[in-house]
């Protein structure tokens, strides 16, 4: 069968949602072309507020990327504005002359911001807040310390004000009415909101009429009717929107305020449908996505030829997306004749609740400061339920009805299946539960992509998570309290490491792909962790990724606060000699810098410039001195006392063992820095009992201590065991280190790891079974073959020792 041609004009939230719904019902019925004035794919306009405030990057707003259009065979004509419809020939014509034929046409041209015909409105820097291009301009102009004036104290204006404030601007909101968000709030709620905004440093001018904008080319101030001028480097006008009916009107399609449609979303031309903010249905126009997505469902149903869905208006609910301000307003909250009001006010806590009742039915709800029961109220309102029975507890909320307290989990358990959880997308609890159980979903991301719940404005995220936890019950991730490794993933350290081991993953991109990382290349939290897990799990196989190393490890030196570096060569066990000292002294002289003895008994050469590092290393290497790894999450120095060779109290050769241990253990990468110490007798001059691994000489041999740390927190070691010989001490150290390397989380010191798993567990793994201990130690020695590479030598001997160390050079002035 030949496909019919469907054209969508308006590549925005409502139109593309209609196409998605249509593809789900009748994937092959149409050959689809989409015209969009904006040069992007379809993005989530709602999130522009979060982009402005810096809480989300632009990338997070993408709803349908170009690959999506390609995958579904949809022709995307982005950057093309449709300027005419020839209804007789069934063609649309774009501004650049492109002509396309249709059998069915869907208009979803959205709305345009209302601009005031005021003097100076044309000035650069006077703008509305509607699309990506405008947000980009705002971000260009928003420099810390500059001033912004937002005209309009409605939802959009306040979100703009908050975003610009977050960007460091001085922000004033100018509002014509005597209270903020007057269409959604009553006087007490509006006063609370004003207070919250002022606490955030946003100035609010009520009852102030804007008379014009002042400036040369660029706006410099906003003038008010009362004669005042407010200095402004940026003026955002957000006083309302009106349906974008221009195209429809010019083409002779019946419009009033919006394009008039019937319950099937059909216009007066039966081949032409319309959805979104451009339409007018039963006298209503729209400004929030929830009703638009319902319209999209209806229009898809008709375009698919099913013809049985009808669109009906439902009460609207509004939330303000300003972090830390909880505000919910729905239905008829104003009250008046024939209405009763239930009110609860707690100004101290900043909580205000008002429920409006008519004929024993909930007609409106206004919640400020505590919005926990919003969905319950919404359901009562939408369903027109009789609330006579609930009345005594109505204000206190759902949790009070049972006897089980009011934690979120209980509320979720008692929530009926029909309760709408995601208002934007009309997703009920039942639909989420069904998706979780049928499709075996485990994470929020999965629920989002399968149901779209919490994928639009995000304010229901907490509830979706609770439903997920409640539905999965005991199955909900093996360690429910454990947090994901970072914001780039839902997976915990344990899950990441297991995946690397079980799937034999050896590179960061491969691991990110397998575990469905949410960001293209991670962040400074996950990348070093992944790099560590890879190289410690697959020594010799996984390749180290220098760009995923923390800075000091990447440049093999410690950056100092002035941007120079300190170089710490290894002096085995803290033992050095005249030759090494001479080399260090020469370097100090050459670069005119001091020498510092470090806490770990090493000599540090500070104040070396980055470009000089390779030269300093070459000199040290020529004299057989290696990197001391004083900068790494790695085995650091082994601190040792002089021991029985010199000391009159000494019972064991701590210096000899210290040197031997350092020679065997240097180069090993560990979850966090790993310090060792060897003392010759219990007087413990090497302070071995605050080291990650401490060895203390006694008459009969050595005591082995683990899990000490001395920093912000001081923790003395736990005694692991006593051994008789040096070899045994070394084998136990290797086994312990390997266990920690394999099971400690990245950035978890050995002390924290031991507190997490418990000393009995560590003893069991290392002491109970000699063969198991040897196996651990074997794995460590195997890894050491690949780890004991001196990074300095590597660099100094390479053919481009300067690469990345020298600064870039300006080659020439280009034209």
């Amino acid at each position: 069968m030949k496909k019919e041609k469907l054209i969508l004009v308006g590549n925005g939230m409502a139109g593309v949602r209609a196409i998605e719904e249509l593809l789900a019902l009748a994937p092959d019925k149409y050959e689809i072309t989409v015209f969009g004035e904006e040069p992007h794919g379809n993005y989530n306009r709602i999130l522009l507020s979060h982009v402005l405030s810096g809480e989300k990057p632009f990338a997070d707003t993408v709803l349908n990327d170009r690959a999506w259009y390609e995958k579904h065979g949809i022709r995307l004509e982005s950057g093309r504005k449709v300027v005419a419809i020839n209804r007789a020939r069934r063609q649309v014509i774009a501004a650049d002359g492109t002509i396309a034929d249709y059998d069915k046409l869907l208009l979803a041209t959205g709305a345009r911001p209302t601009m005031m015909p005021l003097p100076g409105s044309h000035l650069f820097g006077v703008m509305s807040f509607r699309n990506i291009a405008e947000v980009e301009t705002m971000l260009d102009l928003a420099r810390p310390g500059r001033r912004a004036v937002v005209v309009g104290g409605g939802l959009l204006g306040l979100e703009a004000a908050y975003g610009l404030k977050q960007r460091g601007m001085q922000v004033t909101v100018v509002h014509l009415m005597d209270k903020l968000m007057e269409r959604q709030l009553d006087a007490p709620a509006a006063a609370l909101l004003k207070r919250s905004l002022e606490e955030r440093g946003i100035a609010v001018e009520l009852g102030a009429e804007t008379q014009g904008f002042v400036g040369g080319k660029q706006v410099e101030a906003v003038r008010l009717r009362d004669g005042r001028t407010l200095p402004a480097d940026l003026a955002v006008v957000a006083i309302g929107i009106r349906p974008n009916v221009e195209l429809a009107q010019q083409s002779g399609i019946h419009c009033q305020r919006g394009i008039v449609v019937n319950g099937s979303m059909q216009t007066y031309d039966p081949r032409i449908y319309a959805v979104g903010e451009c339409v007018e249905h039963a006298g209503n126009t729209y400004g929030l996505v929830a009703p638009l997505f319902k319209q999209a469902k209806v229009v898809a149903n008709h375009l698919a030829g099913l013809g049985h869905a009808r669109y009906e208006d439902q009460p609207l609910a509004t939330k303000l997306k300003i972090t830390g301000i909880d505000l919910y307003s729905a239905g008829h909250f104003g009250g008046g004749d024939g209405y009763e009001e239930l009110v609860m006010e707690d100004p101290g806590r900043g909580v205000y609740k008002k429920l409006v009742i008519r004929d024993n039915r909930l007609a409106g709800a206004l919640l400020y400061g505590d919005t926990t029961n919003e969905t319950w109220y919404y359901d009562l309102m939408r369903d027109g339920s009789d609330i006579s029975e609930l009345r005594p507890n109505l204000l206190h909320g759902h949790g009070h009805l049972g006897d089980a307290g009011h934690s979120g989990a209980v509320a979720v358990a008692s929530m009926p299946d029909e309760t709408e959880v995601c208002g934007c997308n009309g997703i009920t609890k039942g639909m989420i539960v069904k998706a979780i159980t049928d499709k075996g979903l485990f994470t929020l991301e999965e629920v989002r992509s399968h149901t779209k719940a919490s994928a639009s404005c995000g304010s229901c995220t907490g509830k979706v998570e609770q439903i997920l936890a409640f539905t999965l019950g005991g199955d909900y991730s093996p360690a429910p309290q454990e947090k994901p490794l970072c914001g780039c993933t839902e997976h915990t350290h344990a899950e990441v490491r297991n995946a690397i081991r079980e799937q034999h993953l050896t590179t960061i991109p491969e691991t990110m792909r397998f575990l469905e990382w949410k960001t293209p290349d991670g962040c400074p939290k996950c990348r070093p962790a992944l790099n560590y897990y890879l190289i410690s799990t697959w020594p010799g196989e996984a390749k180290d990724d220098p760009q995923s190393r923390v800075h000091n490890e990447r440049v093999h030196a410690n950056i100092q606060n002035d941007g120079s570096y300190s170089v710490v060569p290894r002096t085995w066990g803290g033992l050095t000699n005249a030759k090494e000292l001479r080399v260090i002294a020469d370097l100090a002289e050459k670069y005119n810098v001091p020498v510092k003895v470090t806490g770990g008994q090493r000599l540090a050469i500070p104040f070396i410039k980055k470009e000089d590092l390779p030269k300093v290393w070459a000199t040290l290497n020529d004299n057989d001195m290696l990197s001391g790894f004083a900068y790494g999450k790695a085995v650091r120095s082994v601190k040792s006392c002089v021991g029985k060779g010199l000391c009159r109290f000494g019972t064991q050769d701590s210096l000899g063992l210290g040197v031997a241990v350092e020679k065997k253990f240097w180069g090993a990468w560990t979850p966090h820095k790993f310090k060792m110490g060897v003392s010759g007798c219990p007087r413990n001059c090497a302070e071995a009992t605050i080291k990650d691994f401490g060895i203390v000489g006694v008459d009969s041999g050595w005591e082995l201590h683990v899990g000490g740390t001395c920093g912000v927190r001081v923790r003395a070691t736990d005694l692991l065991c006593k051994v008789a010989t040096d070899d045994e001490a070394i084998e136990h150290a290797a086994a312990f280190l390997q266990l920690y390397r394999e099971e400690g989380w990245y950035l978890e010191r050995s002390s924290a790891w031991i507190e997490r798993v418990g000393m009995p567990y560590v003893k069991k793994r290392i002491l109970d079974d000699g063969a198991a201990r040897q196996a651990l130690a074997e794995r460590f020695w195997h890894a050491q073959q690949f780890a004991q590479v001196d990074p300095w030598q590597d660099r100094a001997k390479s053919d481009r020792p300067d690469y990345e160390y020298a600064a870039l050079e300006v080659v020439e002035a280009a034209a």
Partner: protein
Amino acid sequence: MTTIRNEMQWIDAGPLEAIPSPGARRLPSAHGDIAVVRTGSGAVYAIDDRCPHKGGPLSQGMVFGERVQCPLHGLVIDLPTGFAVGPDTGAVSTYPVRVADGRILVGLLPQTASAACGGGCACAQAA
């Protein structure tokens, strides 16, 4: 007809491969040090090489997404805008970048550098 003057001066910062992707390098210039940053997706940005917190060298930071993290105390700069990512505040100047024939060109305007603007502007106060 009006003629439009363009005072932008483009300096050649060398071949694209001189910067690892993702990675960054320091570029000394008449306007002070500039951090030239190349992201994993291949975009190149140029920003002042001075962290708004305590002047850390941003060219030495870890690059991820469209961001770079200061090596000293971890402040994160959004490369397209030059702003610190919340909750931190502050900003650095950004410079236009072009890549032509595999070479990186960085555009300098006399007024973009705080050294040249005399330090009286909001950007200098923020730093």
